[in-house]
């Protein structure tokens, strides 16, 4: 597959007053089996960095390495120049794994108090996140009584107990219903104004909606690191939805209510709209039907 245009491989995106998270030629994996190879990038701008890649590409391994759980077999991960396995660096990041990580045998409030004690947060922080994540009504429930989505919310709540500089969020909205997922995304968006957020998701529309940068992994290597807006897909397809039937779209393939038209790029959209209107079509909506992030999975 041809990668979308943009910088590929090692990358560096910076702003002078940012927080520095850098990977220098990192190889990492499990018990001698390397999953990540030669990963190098540097992040200094507070923003949301979406980590994408097909299953097995090494996303979770990257998160675990950045969190200091896995020791790189080569290279190093640094936060403001300090290795990530040092406590000073660990204290600057939050890690949310793809698993809930909720201790059994506790009520929701007790689980949050457990997290709070680990992070030296206060009981008022626990009360605040119960409201922030909308889980106060669950606070006296034991964890096995919760649905997968409710457990996820409890799990996410812990990253809001204390403020940190870097947030590593491995699939934070998986198993959440759309309303709660949106609320979580909004919280993360708010967070990213001042913080570095690395965020993995299999939902490409979500990734495109909230991410400003993309880190794409393929077979354990960094395939792309760039602004999402710089990505140009291999195809640019728009969907045309009309108020009433028209011959102007005759012969175009259809997907639901949308007639599909492939264009060289988004700059051709105004011309397409003018053309349709000149041919008597009453256009209700034009939308991009192809997400350039999809090409990263091809």
């Amino acid at each position, binding site marked *: 597959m041809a990668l979308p245009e943009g910088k590929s491989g090692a990358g560096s995106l910076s702003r002078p007053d940012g927080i520095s998270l850098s990977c220098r030629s990192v190889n990492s994996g499990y018990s001698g089996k390397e999953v990540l190879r030669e990963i190098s990038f540097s992040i200094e701008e507070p923003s949301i960095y979406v980590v994408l890649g097909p299953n097995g590409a090494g996303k979770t391994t990257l998160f675990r390495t950045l969190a200091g759980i896995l020791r790189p077999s080569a290279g190093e991960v640094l936060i403001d120049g300090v290795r990530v396995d040092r406590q000073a660096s660990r204290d600057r990041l939050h890690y949310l794994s793809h698993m809930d990580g909720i201790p059994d*045998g506790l009520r929701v409030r007790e689980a949050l108090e457990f997290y709070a004690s680990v992070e030296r947060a206060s009981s008022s922080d626990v009360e605040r996140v119960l409201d922030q994540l909308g889980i106060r009504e669950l606070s006296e429930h034991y964890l096995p009584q919760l649905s997968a989505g409710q457990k996820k919310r409890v799990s996410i709540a812990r990253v809001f107990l204390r403020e940190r500089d870097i947030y590593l969020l491995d699939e934070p909205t998986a198993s959440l219903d759309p309303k709660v997922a949106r609320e979580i995304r909004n919280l993360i968006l708010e967070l990213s104004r001042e913080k570095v957020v690395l965020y993995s998701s299999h939902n490409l529309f979500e990734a495109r909606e909230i991410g400003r940068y993309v880190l794409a992994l393929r077979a354990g290597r960094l395939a792309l690191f760039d602004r999402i807006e710089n990505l140009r897909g291999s195809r640019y397809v728009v969907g045309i939805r009309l108020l009433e039937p028209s011959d102007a779209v005759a012969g175009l393939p259809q997907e639901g209510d949308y007639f599909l038209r492939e264009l060289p790029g988004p700059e051709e959209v105004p011309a397409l709209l003018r053309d349709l209107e000149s041919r008597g079509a009453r256009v209700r909506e034009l939308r991009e039907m192809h997400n350039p992030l999809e090409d990263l999975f091809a």
Partner: protein
Amino acid sequence: MLQQAAEVGPPSLLGISVRRSITLGRVYLLVGAGLSIFYSAVFALAAGPSFVTVFPVLLPVIAVMGGLGGMVVFTNDRLKGVFEYLIAYGLTPLRLFANILLASLVLESIVLGAGCLVGLGIYAATGHALSWALGTALGLYTIPMSYASVAFTATVGMVWTSLSSPRAGMNSPIGLLPIVGVTPALVTLVAALAAVATRAVPARLVTTVAILLLVVVVFGLLRLVARRLPPERLLSPT
């Protein structure tokens, strides 16, 4: 405004680990405490020489059962990704092991304490004097062997669990741990009886060496964990 995180590692989790061990391992604790109280009461009421000879020997075997709640927490936390979270916040594998080990010893103290309290209480209440022989048996064998056996069981269980992945049709380490745990106490008992029968060495020497050997094994395993166990062995295998 949220507080900025202080640059210190995570605090001790012993208190909450003990509470969770009691909650999750309540079956082991109830069975252990129940057996401990029952047999202590039976031998105390029998009031013969068996109380002085059998009661101190029996308690370490039962105490192993009570300490298994710690292993339930360990297995659970590894499987559910709790360790992954704790390691990210700076807890080393050795601290995680030590935490569970201490929780297991606290649980075992409940079982041992209940047995001693009931057994000695009934024995004294029925008009028997607490002899020097009974005191030395409890102080030099029962209590140290109980703690050593539970420490051995918990440490072997944690190392075993860390090095294994759950497989269908296979017993989990926790299912086999009671057998592993009582083995040192039973082997020591047989060796001590043989020593008494042959008069080759004093039985007290045999039990003391056995206890010291268990302590050495426990510290040796913990040292290996600190030096050689990669943190990824504590990540969920699922």
